[in-house]
């Protein structure tokens, strides 16, 4: 498949044709920053003074490159599809290659950023446990009651802070928990599930 660029994006991307490779690389770098952190007006003004064009033009070029990269990453375009997508811009081979290398190098990063936009659950991050034996409490002495304290650490999204939950359980329930989760692990290796996963493209 190829990505359809609309006319305004094409016009902005044509601008790159007249620029030396170092400048194009600089644009790619700024576009990646844009994808990761949002726009940075200061960078646009600095670039506009250097290249003698208006900051608005710089900004729209950055937007166009960001659009190109995110859409290609979104659909996991391979090298050929990427080339085909920008072929209408009639770039020199060198320029196409430089953009493509940049895209392939940072595709994984961009996809990670994109993944933050879908509805996320708390994700497992770590588990710490300790085994206590309760030997008395206010209303009862002379007892032996093993208790596992579990600290479950979860995380929502890539950048957010860890969430801590203190839970407890007893040996019987822990065994049950282990057995159930182990059967969950086995399920993924079952023949039927492997067929399903192989056939989803």
């Amino acid at each position, binding site marked *: 498949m190829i990505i359809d660029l609309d006319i305004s994006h094409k016009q902005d991307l044509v601008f790159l044709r007249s620029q030396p490779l170092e400048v194009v690389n600089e644009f790619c770098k700024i576009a990646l920053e844009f994808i990761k952190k949002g726009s940075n007006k200061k960078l646009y003004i600095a670039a506009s003074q250097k290249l003698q064009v208006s900051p608005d033009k710089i900004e729209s070029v950055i937007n166009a490159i960001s659009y190109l990269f995110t859409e290609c*990453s*979104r*659909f*996991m375009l391979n090298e050929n599809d990427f080339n085909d997508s920008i072929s209408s811009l009639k770039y020199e081979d060198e320029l196409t290659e430089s953009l493509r290398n940049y895209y392939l190098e940072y595709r994984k990063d961009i*996809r990670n950023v*994109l*993944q933050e*936009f*879908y509805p996320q*659950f*708390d*994700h*497992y*991050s770590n*588990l710490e*446990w300790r*085994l206590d034996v309760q030997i008395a*409490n*206010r*209303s*009862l*002495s*002379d*007892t032996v*009651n*093993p*208790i*596992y*304290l*579990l600290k*479950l650490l*979860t995380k929502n999204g890539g950048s957010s802070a860890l969430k801590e*939950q*203190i*839970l*407890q*359980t*007893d*040996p019987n*329930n*822990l*065994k*049950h*928990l*282990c057995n*159930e*989760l*182990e059967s*969950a*692990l086995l*399920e*993924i290796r079952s023949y039927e*599930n492997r067929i*399903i*996963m192989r056939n*989803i*493209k």
Partner: protein
Amino acid sequence: MNLNLSEDIIKGLETLADEKLINDQVFNHILDSSFKVAVKNNLDSSVILESAVTKDVDAIALKQTFSSLLSFILETMKINSDLNSISGILDDHKFSESRIENILNYFKEHRVAIRKVLSITNFHFPHIIDVNWRLDYFMKSNSVEKLNTPVYLINLTTEQEEGVQPGKVEFACTLDQLQDLVYKLRDAQKQIERSAIKS
């Protein structure tokens, strides 16, 4: 471990032992109600205070004997006193032999149940009592396509206190994360077997 009874409780027990003040019918009623309260079968005090059996007994004496007997039951069960020492204490406080035997029968019958109630009369962290899981194959979202990765959704059922609605802890795992989780839980679970072998 020594039984720790206040003067008020001892006085109440001695009132209970007095056959002139508390006749056998009232005694049996107080005894039965106290054990019912102790095993949390019946927490309504009106049963003991407003019953037809006890209407001729002085209300203050009734409350005193009832609370003393209940404290006595809980304190002896707290330290898990055996029947001999219980009977010794009752004997010291002038209970007749038939009444002592009657009380001991109740202890025999309800010891385990009372200690169970005492063991859960406490605070604790949410206690995991069950787990539910679901395996999804995450294909695409509005922002990314071709993700094609398995995702586990884990749902732990927890219990805070007896009778309170169970809580839920939900989180997602990738395959690697679940493997890590199971490895750690298994290790924890094995630990108790290792400790048992050592001791």
